[in-house]
């Protein structure tokens, strides 16, 4: 290498980086600017997200404070109503009992509350954005790269600005989880609507449907299987992210996992890990069975 460099001009051999001073200055300017922004608008932002805090606290309180038997009955009821499948329902009851027996009931309730809120918020944000994307190629070309960044940026990196703005706690954790979990919701809503059969859309137009009637009667119902897959993905990603979010103060199973990593508690780590797996499977199977049930019209085919 050295020999090649001796004949090449220095500029082509060693990458001409911007000098350290300039980079330091740019970094300092951006950091100071951001800190200044947080200092001036921090209170306003806190006020805006306050309802999230209330909602989260309320749900967590409800999950944790209720007698376990009540929570279990409601959960089994919801799972059965959603899936209409006895095996999934029994599996749910057994996993929840196992979780309770190893003493993780309360932590599981905290995580459940967190995942529920994150999923609801992701759906509320994701579906409208997905619809907008499906309606306009320009919106799609803007939103798509943003989603790419959201999905590939290491989650630890965007924890930094989130913590700078919101500090440590549940709400910043929730925002971090939503940032991580909302892209599949948006993408699959967009995809589902775009995949709707053109002929059916043309028929809707021919009968004089307005844009809203078309969305409500044709696009959303026909995109529903894809949207359900998006909800399923969002739940799975929320569950994965609550563990990482425990680094910025989210409680529950994730916090236990974090402690287990720090202290090399092999058994504690795996017990909490399996509890997360249990919840994940319950959510996954129930939402998939529910999605299939919504599609009952496509199952019976004329022979």
């Amino acid at each position, binding site marked *: 290498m050295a020999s090649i460099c001796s004949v090449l001009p220095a500029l082509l051999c060693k990458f001409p980086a911007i000098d350290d001073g300039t980079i330091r200055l740019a970094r300092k300017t951006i950091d100071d600017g951001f800190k200044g922004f947080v200092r001036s608008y921090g209170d306003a932002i806190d006020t805006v997200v306050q309802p999230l805090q209330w909602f989260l606290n309320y749900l967590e309180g409800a999950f944790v404070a209720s007698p376990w038997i009540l929570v279990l009955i409601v959960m089994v009821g919801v799972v059965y109503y959603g899936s209409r499948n006895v095996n999934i329902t029994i599996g749910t009851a057994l996993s929840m009992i196992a979780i309770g027996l190893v003493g993780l009931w309360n932590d599981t309730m905290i995580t459940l509350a967190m995942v529920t809120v994150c999923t609801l918020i992701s759906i509320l944000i994701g579906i409208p954005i997905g619809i907008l994307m499906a309606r306009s190629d320009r919106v799609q070309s803007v939103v798509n790269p943003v989603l790419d960044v959201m999905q590939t940026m290491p989650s630890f990196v965007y924890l930094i600005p989130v913590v700078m703005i919101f500090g440590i706690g549940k709400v910043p954790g929730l925002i971090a989880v939503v940032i991580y979990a909302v892209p599949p919701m948006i993408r699959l809503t967009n995809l589902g609507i775009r995949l709707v*059969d053109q*002929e*059916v859309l*043309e*028929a809707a*137009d*021919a*009968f*004089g*449907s*307005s844009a809203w*009637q078309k969305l409500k*009667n*044709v696009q959303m*119902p*026909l995109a*529903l299987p894809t949207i359900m897959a998006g909800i399923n993905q969002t739940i799975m990603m929320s569950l994965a992210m609550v563990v990482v979010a425990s680094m910025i103060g989210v409680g529950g199973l994730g916090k236990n996992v974090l402690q287990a990593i720090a202290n090399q508690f092999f058994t504690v780590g795996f017990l909490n890990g399996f509890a997360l797996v249990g919840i994940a499977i319950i959510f996954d199977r129930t939402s998939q069975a529910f999605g299939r049930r919504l599609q009952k*019209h*496509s199952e*019976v*085919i*004329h022979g």
Partner: protein
Amino acid sequence: MASHAIEVKNLYKIFGPRGGDYVDAVKRGLGKAELNEKHGHVLGLQDINISMPAGGVMVVMGLSGSGKSTLIRHINRLIDPTAGEVLYDGVDVCKMSDNDLREFRRHKTAMVFQKFALLPHRTVLDNTVYGLEIQGVGKAESEKRARGWIDRVGLQGFENHYPNQLSGGMQQRVGLARALTNDADILLMDEAYSALDPLIRVDMQTVLLDLQKELKKTVVFITHDLDEALRLGDKIAILRDGRVVQQGTGQQIVLSPADDYITAFVKEVNRGRVINVETIMRPLSGNPEGMPLAMGMVLESAARAMTGAHVNAAHVVDENGRPIGALDLPTIISAMVTPTSHEDKRAA
């Protein structure tokens, strides 16, 4: 509710980002192939002038790529024209505002599609009420009307089935019921029967003809099948490469095809079911002989009646029973089997 005629005037459609720029060139004679090669635009329709009869069935016939589906989509403006007018009741559909267009589509038109285009997540009944639901008609009222039409197209008992539980023919009955429930003046049928088996197709043609006898809607029917066109059409227009090659009644087209293209088409037609007795009768000389035949009777029926009655000669009578012409069995048979050539017809 009187139906109105649809007038298509000087209609041009050029597909592509700058279609409007080439209309003049096409009017000056730029061809379809050249437009595509040199300018990357596709000539969909050129200089279409058709007057579609009020309360009658207008059939637009052509092979794939002839522009027939493009043409029918101009009537409810699912496709915007590059130039020209589509007049209904004196109003140019092409100049309507979005709101007017939506109202026009809701109340004046109904469409049946080649691939049915039913909503897969809705039952037969819910599919049928779709047009009324869009119009904002109440649920009870629209379901009552929808049930009536479901019965008329022969689907009673299937109200709660989903489309993919039904055969193709039955699905298209749903498509027809959905369009009829709309109670619109104009019924647009885009190759509505092309995806059906031959027997079911004839069956559905009968359904349409029976309904049309009492409904008297302005029907625009698109097909690539000449037999279907001749059976259904009060008037037929034949499209080729986006241009009308010939229009007229079925008889006119069969008896005097405008060019070789159409001649090739009509060669295979069952002429006995198209040509009427008055078309081939000779002037009456002396007293009417043989059995009377009603005006408008097709040759096949006439031949059947005459052989049944064992007579060789017959005379044609008008609505009032007055004899207006004479003909005999050999004339009928020869008209049925030998294509009257272009020239013969001109000479006649």
